């Protein structure tokens, strides 16, 4: 048993940060919270995370996608989970239909907000296994 795995949690909504931190911390993960994707990336440079959970629509519309792309380009093996309250925006339906859609989003999983705690934990465990 080494150090607990590190998860970066990125969301501009404080409530979601706290909720998901609670869920993940209760399962024994180390969790770092960021309300800004830029700061999350800087932190990741200092200590690469084992997994990233990010909101999709953080202020700037595509910031979740941008973050996922950045993470995958620097740490291709780090899983990314995208979460959003707006599955469709401006006529575009973001919810992925299959693994190809997920790959196009640079994501390994996609959830509609709010994510049930057990679902999130199950997915995180699965991706980190």
């Amino acid at each position, binding site marked *: 048993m080494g150090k607990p795995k590190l998860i970066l949690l990125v969301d501009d909504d404080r409530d*979601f940060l706290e909720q998901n931190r609670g869920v993940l911390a209760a399962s024994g993960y180390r969790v770092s919270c960021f309300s800004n994707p830029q700061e999350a990336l800087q932190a990741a440079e200092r200590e690469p995370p084992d997994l990233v959970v990010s909101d999709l629509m953080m202020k700037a519309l595509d910031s979740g996608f941008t973050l996922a792309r950045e993470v995958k380009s620097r740490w291709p093996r780090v899983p990314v989970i995208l979460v959003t309250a707006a599955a469709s925006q401006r006529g575009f339906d973001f919810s992925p239909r299959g693994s190809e859609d997920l790959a196009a989003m640079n994501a390994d999983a996609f959830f509609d907000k709010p994510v049930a705690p057990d679902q999130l934990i199950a997915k995180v465990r699965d991706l980190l296994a």
Partner: protein
Amino acid sequence: MNEEPVRILVVDDEKGVREGCRKILSVEGYQVTIAEDGQAGWEAFQAAGGGFAVLLVDLMMPRMTGLELMKLVREADTDVLPIIITAHATIDTAVEGTKQGAYSYIPKPFTPDELLLAIKNGLERRALTIEARRLREERESRLLEVAAERSKSNTIIKCITDGILVINTEKLIVLRNPNAARILSDTQQVPFPLEALSCAEVKGLIAEVLDGDGGPTILSREVSLAQATYMVNVSRVVEPGAEASGAVAVFRDITVLKKLETAKSMFVSMVAHEVKNPLAAAEGWLNLILSGLSKQDPQEEKRMIGRSLLRIRTLRTLVTELLNITAIQTGNFTLRRSPVEVGRLAAEAAEACRDKAQEKSISLSFTAAASPEARALADRDALLMIFSNLIDNAIKYTPDGGHVGVHVSNDGMYVKVSVKDDGIGMEPADRERLFDEFFRAKNDYTANVPGTGLGLSLVKRLTEMHQGRVSVESSPGAGSEFAVQLPVC
């Protein structure tokens, strides 16, 4: 057919002739006037006020000859048909007489039948002439009407805001109004082949209608031309009982409608996001409690419920805002007015926003000049909505660490609440549309600020319902100051 008796003027210096004529003609139902020479004839004509159908006139008479009288009478009334009765029935006089407009002549002596026949023929001829003239006049006036109608239609087609193209079956563009030329940026001289039209999409649409076989065809399509969007309607021109004679294309500018459509759909997704986010957050907290993650710690559970409640309240405000704007738009919003201490209410609104300001390390100050207790006859909730919106906006559009100041003043007529920030400010173009529904200024900063684009429109409408006014001063980077003035009661 004609009730009026036909009137005949008989002028002859031979009494026997003129009395004889009168007798013969009167029996036939003509109304006869007689005169003994040219001069008397002219006087009789004038005395009767004209209206004679036939002038039966001798040529050689004292004082005024028959030809002279004919000339005078014809000048006064071209419809009078002159018939010459003369003893000097030579070719020369007859020719001279007809040159002067005589219809025919009767050589003396003549029988009653000869006279009646000449009169009858003359009257028929006269009737034909009059009818022909009437027809001619009618036709001319109709032609004039048609010409006027055509130029009217041309003017209408020229001035109509829609672009119009008319294409014949040979695929020649035979009519193009100035707006069509502008829309298609086309300068070719009409007529020109459809093939030479610059826009392929329009060309295809027209060809499709022209080539379609049988029955009237209408095609409608949205076409983008030079940054504008047009609804192009092409319909076949079918004249009753004839083959299709071409097509007409109408270009209607729907750019504004399209923009509105986009704004509305953006608004709907914005609202969906704004509604779903707090709902999801509240649901998330409740999920946590249910999943046992709170470890049944009453303090922790209370905190989580408190947090959900906060989000639910925000949601309720949003829904209220939406309902209010709809009610105002449909005229179903009524104010419940009572004297309200405007300054106190503004302070209350500022207090309610203090947490939000602190979150962004924005200093929020409240100041009041003399007599802050000035009252306005107002709906308390509406006023609170106005102030909260303005203060909330100021916080939203001011970067972290900035300043927002709420100031109340009173000039005896109006109580003024101003909200001043040192935030991002706005471009003059954005300032103009600021109070439009769903309008949101678009720049890098506002892209990061959530909002429905309803707040300021609500502020303006509510203020105006209170006989007040909203003003704004702002420039990019120099902050904004919104002021609401309400009449003091």
